[in-house]
């Protein structure tokens, strides 16, 4: 049966490499239509939390149902065979910590506090019901994607720095380092996706079975166990990640993995008191509204809260964004950054556009293409730029700071913002003037003006403005298409409805 373990290792290697390869292609601007969000689409934690928070399961997120179905058949095979964060923990545990058999025996025993993950799961799901979607913060796929975006790409040659990235990198490194002391500690004790799959795995048809008559109680199975699910005692199906190490390690071939094993299934319920579960739920019901009301998020349109093009209105956006960081990594200019403060407590690590780090490329629609939950809706280049006849998608408006602007404030020629402006006709137009400098020499200038009805807030003007530190032309979120109320102008006339 050692074939089982070899196949498991093959699966782990392939899926880990696939995950990293897709992220690498995404972050390095591959122009092909690869399934960048495939892992996130099949994530039932995001799917269920999203359906609780937003009341919908967007598009391809429905693949999460397939994973639940497979879990009902095979148990938590996702954790042991596919999850790239699980694979990385297993790798780091193997590399960092050569253990004696005795140590392994101790460390691979089940502990009651491993049930913490069920509390976390209940907390996150009830919080989602209360309207605040935070499941992504601990979702292993998002944890890994964020961590790689923060800890790997920035340090590679040509990489862009990511302010605040140490938070995501720290969580990932912490999880991997913890495996040095307890293998797969995150999976065993904290992972909400593991808890969710563990819940469904209790019904699984395939499971580990120990032939008690052949067993010599040698405990070698526990020594090799990844999930701390005690194959020797009353096997905990909800903890088992189907690593199949026990079947290989048993010298008596007493342990097998198969369909509907003959012995009655061992009793298995999460080893968590009702008081704990209730407590988690009540905590979420208290925390949710408080964070929503006082977290500084959705209440008012903040000037620096510039969401990517196609983003839903702020409340719906927060109900859908799982903070997976894919849009941030997909952005070719590095404009999309994780929000640390701009979006309030609820919006921590949601994507915002920071103009001094990048701009929204005029015909690029990448963030919406990769967003697994369609918190950023999918645009076509024609729809985004308005060449389809409808008004273009705007994410804000540029405002000129005349005190800082070279032609306005310093009597120095400059037209960089107008030159960069991508709309046609340009939203920035130039007014020719001749003024006298302090020494009375006349100088001809072209002073920029913004036509707010044409400006789409793409921020390339602010990004390229030669005035250092704070630019002389800056974007704020007013005028964004997604929120008609955060708008200073009357709606733009559409075709056939021109003002007389």
């Amino acid at each position, binding site marked *: 049966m050692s074939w089982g373990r070899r196949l498991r290792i093959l699966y782990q290697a392939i899926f880990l490499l696939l995950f990293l390869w897709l992220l690498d292609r995404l972050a390095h601007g591959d122009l*092909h239509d690869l*399934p960048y969000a495939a892992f996130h689409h099949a994530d039932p934690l995001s799917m269920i939390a999203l359906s609780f928070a937003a009341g919908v399961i967007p598009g391809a997120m429905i693949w999460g149902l397939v994973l639940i179905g497979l879990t009902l058949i095979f148990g938590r095979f996702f954790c042991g065979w596919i999850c790239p964060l699980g694979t990385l923990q297993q790798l780091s545990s193997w590399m960092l910590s050569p253990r004696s058999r005795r140590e392994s025996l101790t460390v691979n025993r089940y502990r009651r506090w491993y049930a913490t993950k069920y509390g976390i799961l209940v907390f996150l799901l009830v919080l989602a019901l209360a309207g605040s979607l935070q499941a992504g913060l601990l979702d292993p796929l998002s944890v890994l994607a964020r961590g790689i975006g923060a800890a790997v790409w920035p340090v590679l040659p040509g990489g862009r720095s990511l302010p605040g990235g140490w938070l995501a990198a720290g969580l990932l490194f912490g999880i991997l380092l913890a495996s040095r002391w307890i293998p797969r500690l995150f999976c065993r004790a904290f992972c909400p996706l593991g808890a969710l799959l563990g819940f469904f795995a209790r019904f699984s048809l395939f499971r580990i079975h120990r032939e008690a008559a052949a067993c010599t109680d040698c405990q070698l199975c526990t020594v090799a166990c990844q999930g701390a699910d005690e194959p020797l005692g009353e096997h905990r199906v909800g903890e088992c990640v189907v690593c199949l190490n026990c079947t290989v390690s048993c010298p008596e071939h007493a342990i097998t993995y198969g369909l509907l094993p003959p012995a009655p299934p061992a009793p298995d319920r999460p080893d968590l008191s009702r008081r704990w579960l209730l407590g988690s739920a009540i905590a979420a019901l208290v925390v949710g509204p408080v964070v929503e009301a006082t977290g500084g998020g959705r209440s008012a349109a903040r000037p620096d809260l510039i969401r990517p093009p196609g983003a839903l209105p702020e409340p719906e956006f927060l109900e859908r964004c799982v903070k997976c960081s894919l849009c941030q990594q997909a952005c070719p200019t590095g404009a999309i950054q994780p929000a640390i403060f701009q979006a309030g407590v609820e919006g921590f690590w949601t994507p915002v556009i920071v103009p001094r780090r990048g701009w929204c490329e005029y015909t690029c629609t990448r963030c919406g293409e990769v967003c697994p939950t369609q918190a950023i809706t999918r645009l076509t*280049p024609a729809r985004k730029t308005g060449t389809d006849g409808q008004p273009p998608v705007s994410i804000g408006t540029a405002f000129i700071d005349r005190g800082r602007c070279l032609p306005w404030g310093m009597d120095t020629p400059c037209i960089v913002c107008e030159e960069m402006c991508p709309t046609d006709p340009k939203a920035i137009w130039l007014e020719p003037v001749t003024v006298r400098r302090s020494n009375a020499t006349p100088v001809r200038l072209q002073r920029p003006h913004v036509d707010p009805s044409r400006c789409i807030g793409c921020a390339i003007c602010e990004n390229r403005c030669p005035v250092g530190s704070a630019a002389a032309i800056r974007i704020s979120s007013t005028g964004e298409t997604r929120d008609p109320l955060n708008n200073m102008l009357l709606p733009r006339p559409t075709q056939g409805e021109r003002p007389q």
Partner: protein
Amino acid sequence: MRRVIIIVLVLLPLAVLAVWIGVRAHRLRPKSAIPAGTSATAPGPQLPSPSSCGAAGRSQLEHYDRSTVYDWLDGGAAPYLDHGFTTSTVATYRFETGGRTLTIEAAAVRFASPRGAAAQAAAETPPGAAPVPGLPGAHSTRDVLVWCRGRDMLRLVSFTPGAETSGPFAALARAWLGGTAP
């Protein structure tokens, strides 16, 4: 035998995955947007620079499409729209000839089909207009020149009554047709 079947079954999803990724890897994501409404055949509904036709000056170019054509033609827009009007470019040229200033309004108009352009050009051509030497298909009177080329129509109207226009008309039309070699 049973083991081989199991291994094949377990490997099958990986094969399906590989095929799927392979298919996706050969598809390109959507390209930049091509502006709607016009195609890039030469000459477009564009007007030549004043220097290329010997004019002394030119007003700002004005562009119109189906939704703004009324701003340009007001009541006269209906037949244009019926003939498949898509876009137009309009400007006023100033010529200095023999001590006189000559003002000519030039309009380059694009239609959805050559047939529509020809129909509109026929309707615009005033009675008594004569063919213009060197410009096959063009007709003009002293005050108006109309020329249809494929999907495009050029219309020149002199705002200076009675002036001799044949030179400036021909220069403008030639520059409109063929690019503007210095």
